[in-house]
């Protein structure tokens, strides 16, 4: 017996919907669980006080500061480098042996596990260059880790700008750099931003790299050469060592909120940018 296509269609659709719902269910469960467990313990002082008694008491201000500084360093290096790379790949060269090699490097780097970036950062920045466990070491290592993400998304964004715009600019006598800066970059900006946001997200959530390269000092960092812990590391230590489940949940809740806010902010910003362009 042949099942009629219409019924097959309905069955298949049911399965697909079920799969989508369960995937979303997991998301909602994880976020909901963490937020529900964490919000009770969040207070203004939790956000603004130093870490006391290994995290059992006080707040998480140093971890917040550490996170921000480390992300800042990582993005400050990876974004310009990554965007420049993507401009080279998308606008300045033809596909060939050179781009193949470069692309191979990017793809491989994208696949390197974070623990390897941790080892690498530890050897190069912490030991050989003598930065010690520090925000600088952590930021540099994170920058290496997020570089491929930024390159890939930016390149895609550049390529999605209609070819016509380049032709028009070139036909009006724009140099290659003018074509890029005046008629490509402005329209690729939302996409590039997405890449940067992804990079920020990955830096915020990364734990292994940070533990290996930035250490886990609880004090407020006074310079970029100080060791610091990020919120993700703080959460890991609190939860793993059973130091304080309340504070662990609270930290995780703040962490997830941060990521949510960054995403929502980025999407709305992108929407605004897009609206101006079409």
């Amino acid at each position: 017996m042949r099942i009629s296509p219409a019924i097959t269609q309905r069955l298949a659709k049911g399965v697909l919907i079920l799969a989508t719902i369960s995937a979303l269910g997991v998301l909602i469960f994880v976020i909901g669980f963490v937020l529900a467990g964490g919000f009770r313990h969040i207070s203004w002082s939790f956000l603004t006080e130093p870490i006391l008694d290994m995290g059992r008491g006080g707040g998480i201000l140093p971890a917040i500061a550490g996170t921000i500084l480390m992300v800042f360093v990582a993005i400050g290096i990876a974004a310009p480098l990554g965007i420049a790379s993507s401009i080279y790949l998308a606008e300045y060269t033809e596909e060939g042996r050179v781009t193949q090699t470069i692309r191979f490097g990017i793809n491989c780097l994208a696949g390197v596990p974070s623990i390897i970036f941790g080892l690498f950062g530890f050897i190069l920045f912490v030991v050989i260059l003598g930065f010690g466990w520090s925000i600088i070491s952590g930021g540099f290592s994170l920058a290496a880790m997020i570089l491929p993400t930024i390159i890939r998304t930016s390149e895609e964004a550049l390529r999605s700008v209609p070819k016509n715009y380049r032709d028009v600019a070139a036909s009006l006598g724009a140099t290659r750099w003018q074509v890029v800066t005046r008629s490509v970059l402005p329209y690729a900006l939302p996409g590039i931003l997405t890449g940067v946001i992804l990079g920020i997200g990955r830096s915020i959530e990364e734990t292994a790299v940070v533990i290996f390269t930035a250490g886990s000092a609880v004090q407020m960092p006074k310079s970029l050469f100080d060791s610091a812990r990020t919120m993700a590391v703080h959460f890991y230590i609190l939860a793993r060592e059973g130091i304080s489940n309340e504070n662990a949940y609270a930290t995780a809740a703040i962490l997830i909120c941060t990521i949510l806010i960054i995403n929502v902010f980025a999407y709305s910003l992108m929407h605004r940018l897009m609206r101006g362009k079409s």
Partner: protein
Amino acid sequence: MKKIEIKNLNVSFDGFHALRNVSFDIPRNEILSIIGPANSGKSTILFCINRMIERIPNVKVEGDILLDDRNIHTIKDVEELRRRIGIVYATPIPLPMTIKENILFGPKLKKRLTAAKAGELVENSLKAAVLWDEVKERLDSSALRLSGGQQQRLCIARTLAVKPEVIMFDEPCSGLDPISTAKVEEAMKELKKDHTIVLVTNNTKQAARVGDRTAFLLMGELIEIDSTDKIFTAPSKQKTEEYVTGKFG
């Protein structure tokens, strides 16, 4: 007086021979129409003349093109060449910015403009493209809100703003209604007083209406070039006659 001279032009993309041994002249202050069915290489000729073809990967160009008796490949500053030879594309491509910014895009690439100079330039360019009266009230609104015909004339105005000597039109009316088409054609006739004009079109009737001379291209080969009257009334090649009477294409 010839403005542009094309000698033995051969172009191939990835092994596809797009133009074979094409040679002809483009006279000064005239409209030359290039006609032929789709994919016969009409637009490719235009891209060779302003060297936009160099932006396409894996393309091989042989032969010489002379602009005012100077080989364009000896011109170091390719941007300068493209300023001297403007192009208007088949579909209007306004950049997603205001009307004014669109017009000033080209001039601003070269130098800064005072507000007065810029205003003057915008007005003159739009007037020459027969668009001024329709948009003078809303120069600062987005160019994307204009109708198709207005967009195309805006693109002409944008090309004019860099003061080119030659203007090439690549099927400029294929998406336009009768009235807009007539306006664009009117603008072209107006422009030939000061410019040399090359018009690529697949509308043979349009070529008959506006062209002083007409070239017929078929599958990469130049079949015939002559005065427009001659091409449409007494062509010397059978293929030309078949095409202009609609036997194929």
